């Protein structure tokens, strides 16, 4: 059931992606995306130094020096290229990744993301999360609507440490798609049969229904 919700999110995000785009997929739900692309051809970037990441190899063809950012064995697509970590983050930070799809612990009503640390807990890992938030051209957050403790992940104000001042463009949960513009949050699509009032109840931040201006929606959908 949880897996179905995650797949709903992955499938909906695929609709936001276009063939030929360079995409960096974070850990968690984003890693499901390659399985639901149909005939869309993405160029996947892996922060440890690869453009053109392919699927998991068959067991006999694993090379532990060809791995993803999650440290799992991968393959290369035709036309792939390899480079060092400084070149990889130059690509990320320099605005050369079209879309980063990230998981999140929280997103606030302005689109600010918390996805690397839990308050009060040991903070010993950040990886490339902040570089991606700072550098990707478009940021899509893929997250379940509520935490496993039933707390809303979309919140009025972050209580978890922020990943950066750069805002998400879009959040996709199993229930809805939210867009962020100029500090406000807009519900642009419902993905489950949850009534609107119940959706509002389980969402920790106030949102408006529909986009601020119809023009904006078209522009964003281009």
């Amino acid at each position, binding site marked *: 059931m949880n897996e179905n919700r995650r797949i709903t999110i992955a499938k909906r995000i695929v609709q936001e992606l276009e063939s030929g785009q360079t995409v960096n997929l974070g850990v968690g739900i984003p890693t499901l995306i390659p399985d639901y692309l149909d005939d869309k051809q993405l160029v996947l970037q892996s922060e*440890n130094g690869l453009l053109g990441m392919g699927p998991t190899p068959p067991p006999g063809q694993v090379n532990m020096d060809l791995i993803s950012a999650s440290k799992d064995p991968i393959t290369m697509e035709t036309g792939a290229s390899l480079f060092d970590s400084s070149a990889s983050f130059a690509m990320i930070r320099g605005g050369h990744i079209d879309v980063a799809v990230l998981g999140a612990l929280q997103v606030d009503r302005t689109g600010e993301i918390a996805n690397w640390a839990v308050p009060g807990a040991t903070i010993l890992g950040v990886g490339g999360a902040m570089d991606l938030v700072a550098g990707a051209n478009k940021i899509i957050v893929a997250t379940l609507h509520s935490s496993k403790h039933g707390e809303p992940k979309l919140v009025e104000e972050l209580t978890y440490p922020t990943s950066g001042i750069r805002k998400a463009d879009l959040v996709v949960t199993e229930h809805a798609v939210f867009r962020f513009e100029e500090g406000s949050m807009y519900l642009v699509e419902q993905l489950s049969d949850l009534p609107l009032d119940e959706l509002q109840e389980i969402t920790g931040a106030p949102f408006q229904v529909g986009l601020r201006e119809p023009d904006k929606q078209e522009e964003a959908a281009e």
Partner: protein
Amino acid sequence: MQKLLDAYEFVKFIKNGDTVLVGGFGMSGTPLTLIDGLAASSLTGLTVVSNNLGEPGKGLGILLEGKKLKKAVGSYFTTNRDAVKAWADGELEIELVPQGTLAEAVRCGGAGIGGFYTKTAAGTKLADGKEEREIDGERYLFEKAIKADVSLIKAHKADRLGNLVYDHTGRNFNPVMATAGKVVIAEVDEIVGTGELAPAHIVTPHVYVDYVVLSRYVKKAGVFVERE
């Protein structure tokens, strides 16, 4: 080959308390033989700059077990629960740096750049105590270059001059770390004749490499095992 050292001979170039750059991302492109050498040495109080600290008992994890480390600088330590525990017990200092900032700071260290401004981490906890500057209307953080006493890196092949090429994503931090240590030791899977690596394909020119060590490990079914 003038630069070739026996497996653990390189340890003589390192002193207690030194800062050591160690290449690798997870267990890929990690200089396992050189780490073994550090573990077998009497060195202590080292500061290691590396993306991770390996896994418990693996890679740089064995230095933690051997109490060789005073401090670790890197981007992701949570994959090694021993590191988390050592930190919680006050036995290990940790400096957390975003991965791209780490790579760039090391590159700058090797390139004669004193420091740089990045947008990454501006406005976050990792910006605490760091200078902020607005450039063209955007917020940037000042980050100082990182240099070290010694660099321990892993490459795939070296020629007899010390030119290096890497194995797929085993490249990762190794080429930048090759530039930023006062003494640079490269562990390699294979040594080939000078001229066998094409000039346009060499990733690390030999000027960066002081010594070469043949790896004690070989890849079998894609995973490193001890050489027989």
